């Protein structure tokens, strides 16, 4: 049952990404050309609404659906890995026109060649795991 909740939220997210055209290479290309507000509006308003939820959850000491306190600790620390990793991720985002969420959703829309993109991303993850101790973090 708990897993079913996540499938349902995933369906909602995939549907949202499709209706907002976030899964389109064309929209990502347009975003990086900085010729349209569409994607900036989406990301900006998503962050703004999330920020409000974030503050509300923290201040109200809200409990989750199972009655456990919702804990939102600081998740990240450091600098180098975020800059270098971020740049490398950005290269991939602009080439494939998709970040990981849209990759899955694109397969669902019938663009099956994105299975190859996902497979390649898995290989990229695997290579990172194999060589990460040699990389600056």
């Amino acid at each position, binding site marked *: 049952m*708990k*897993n079913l909740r996540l499938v349902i*939220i*995933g369906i*909602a*997210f*995939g549907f*949202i*990404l*499709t*209706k*907002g*055209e976030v899964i*389109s*290479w*064309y929209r990502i290309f347009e*975003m*990086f*050309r900085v010729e349209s507000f569409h994607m900036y*509006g989406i990301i900006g*308003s*998503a*962050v703004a609404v999330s*920020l409000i939820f974030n503050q509300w959850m923290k201040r109200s000491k809200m409990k*989750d659906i*199972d009655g456990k306190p*919702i804990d939102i600790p*600081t998740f*990240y*620390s*450091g600098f180098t890995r975020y800059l*270098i*990793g*971020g*740049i*490398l*991720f*950005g*290269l*991939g985002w*602009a*080439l*494939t026109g998709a*970040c*990981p*969420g849209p990759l*899955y*959703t*694109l397969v*669902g*829309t019938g663009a099956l*060649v994105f299975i*190859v*993109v*996902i497979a390649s*991303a898995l290989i990229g993850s*695997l*290579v990172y795991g*194999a060589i*990460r101790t040699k990389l600056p973090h």
Partner: protein
Amino acid sequence: MLHDFLYGPWSWYVTGPAIGLVYFALYFVGKRFGVSGTMKAGCTMLGAGKKIDYFDFEWKKEIWNMMFAVGLVLGGVLGGIVFPNTMPMELAEPTIQVLEGYGLTSYNDGIVATEIFSWESLFTLKGFIFIVVGGFFVGFGSRYADGCTSGHAITGLANLELPSLVAVIGFFIGGLFVTHVLMDYIMNL
């Protein structure tokens, strides 16, 4: 009204806040919003944990992540096949002119740039770069940065975490470089 909701396209001010609701919904079921963790868990499921300690964890504890990914695929079926978006996309005029220069016109018919992302294209140098090289960087980069657009640009920024801002700046350095410096070369391959 219902027709517009189902067939889209949605404007940015509907799409963005809806993503904010997803962020909240995941915390409400006890999870933290982030998609690229599925890539790590995927490697572990395929057995990478035996050789590489980074992948040596109990992936069954992260099964929720996989369920979320299954939902993402089904959401694509719902939004792309059952209720396909109204076309053509309303892209910016200057972008359209560049696209026509590249010989790309599939935005008239659908959401996918089918000239680049197709099985035929996969076996060309150009298609290989977009599909295989691009995919590699998505996976490698999101593991290196410990998060992708959802984990950093939404969840991290909403929690005012500075490393996430650094990551997002990185995303744009990489993306702007591809689009403004490399794209002309790749498209002419």
